[in-house]
């Protein structure tokens, strides 16, 4: 097999397309499932951070400190180390440490705190007067959350989620390298280890395409919902 020179990138007959599409689907699946969980978990954590950040009560302060510490710690652990660190927990939770399912816990745990911070910032950017206006009308806390905080910060929440999703795609590739499946796994095993540059190349192009589509869809959505 010709493994030298630029032409090695274009040996398309060496590509097993059904494998490629299977890996693409795995990448998309890992990203989708984890982003959905991250959106929910991150929004909840972000809300908790926001609600406890300007409260006077001592319990709120303690809670805020704990959640902040949790978020900061998990945000600073490099992803590749996090996967290794979570191997036993993954085994216990998912019953396996290989395949797309096994990647989920580490993907979620690394991205949710990151998104939580973005959510908190988005809430803080809402004009305080608007929240006060709702308050003056007799709104309950849950009405303020559902009718003011979430809709008013929606563009920021969506663009934050886009950023998070794109970094998650990168993480899936990294997770793939140590057995999680998907395009990263394919590029590593069939591309790098089997010295098949074309497979690495095609996998890369597909990943870039997924990222582009994700960014494009995110930007489009933000544009549609932003009425400011």
């Amino acid at each position: 097999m010709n493994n030298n020179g630029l032409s090695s990138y274009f040996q398309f007959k060496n590509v097993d397309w059904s494998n490629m599409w299977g890996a693409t689907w795995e990448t998309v699946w890992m990203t989708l499932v984890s982003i959905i969980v991250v959106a929910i978990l991150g929004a909840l954590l972000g809300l908790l951070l926001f609600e406890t950040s300007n409260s006077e009560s001592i319990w709120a302060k303690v809670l805020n400190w704990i959640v902040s510490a949790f978020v900061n710690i998990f945000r600073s652990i490099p992803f590749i180390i996090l996967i290794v660190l979570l191997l036993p927990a993954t085994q216990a939770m998912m019953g396996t440490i290989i395949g797309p399912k096994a990647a989920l816990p580490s993907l979620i745990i690394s991205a949710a705190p990151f998104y939580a911070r973005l959510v908190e910032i988005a809430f803080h950017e809402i004009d305080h007067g608007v929240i006060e206006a709702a308050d003056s009308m007799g709104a309950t806390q849950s009405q303020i959350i559902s009718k003011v905080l979430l809709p008013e910060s929606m563009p920021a929440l969506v663009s934050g989620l886009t950023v998070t999703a794109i970094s998650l795609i990168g993480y899936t590739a990294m997770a793939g390298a140590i057995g999680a499946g998907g395009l990263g796994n394919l590029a590593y095993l069939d591309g790098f280890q089997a010295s098949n540059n074309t497979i690495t190349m095609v996998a890369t192009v597909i990943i870039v395409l997924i990222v582009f589509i994700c960014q494009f869809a995110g930007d489009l959505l933000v544009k549609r919902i932003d009425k400011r």
Partner: protein
Amino acid sequence: MIEFKDVSKTFIAKEGEVDAVKDVNLTIPDGKIYGIVGYSGAGKSTLIRMLNGLEFPTTGSVTINGTEISGLKGSKLRNQRLKIGMIFQHFNLLWSRTVFDNIAFPLEIAKVPKDERKKKVQRLIELVGLTGRENAYPSELSGGQKQRVGVARALANDPEILLSDEATSALDPQTTDEVLDLLLSINKQLNLSVVVITHEMHVIRKICDQVAVLDAGKIVEQGPVLDVFKHPKQPITKRFVNQETGSTSLDDTNVVVSELLEKYPNGVIVKLGFHGDQAQLPIVSSMLRKFPDIDLSIIEGNIHQTQEGALGSLFVQLISDNKESVHGALAYFTTMRVETEVINREQ
């Protein structure tokens, strides 16, 4: 009726304690427009925010129709808030909602059923003159239109009281007058009490029945708007009144007065005060007909509309060789219920 009893509010800030409101006693009658005027930092916002529990007094009590607001918490406070509408300097609309949905917002909070909500919002949109703009977003509206949405939203739950915190301060003079006219017509139509806070005497003059002047957290003067305009007692009130009646700064007038005194040593300079109906009568010309030997020159004059009628003042100089005529003229003004004040009389 709104009652403030010995209300004080002290904030604990980083730089130390701030006495934002000090020993305020105030009674605000129903169905009127009550104005509170004061300079920036006087404590106006703090005072008005105690009416809907956005702020609580450190000491003293605030009651509305017998309910002590300063003692309410949780759902009781929220229910009370449904009965109080508030409009803000920066409108505080939800940009993610259309005009229609912004006005529906307080109705959603009050859990009003959907059909009823729709009818009510439609009525409010007509009331504030925004028909045709229901589906616009706040970003597509002018400042005046945004405040109309603010007003409609504040009225949605049929409040007993409307609070206005500098609602026209972000608007140009023309739009300010439009919004003030709207507040006035709402006060008349719905017979609801309005508490207006402002730093502009113009707002007070144009729509308020009564006024209180707040200086460094204290009420230094209060009363019917016409009285306060006619006889301001405190220096700060005089400054506010002059700002509005624009006695083109009294200093200017004083210069003219001294010049005229030099020019016509035998003249008498009089300040005439008109209010209500007399402002429309030809009192000065009938005086001249009565005392043909008097020459009259006008130094300065102005007239302003208030809620209780027109309010005017006129500086004139009366010149005559006959002292009796001048005395007669002054007496004539007094019988016509024009206030006279002799500024400087030649001995």
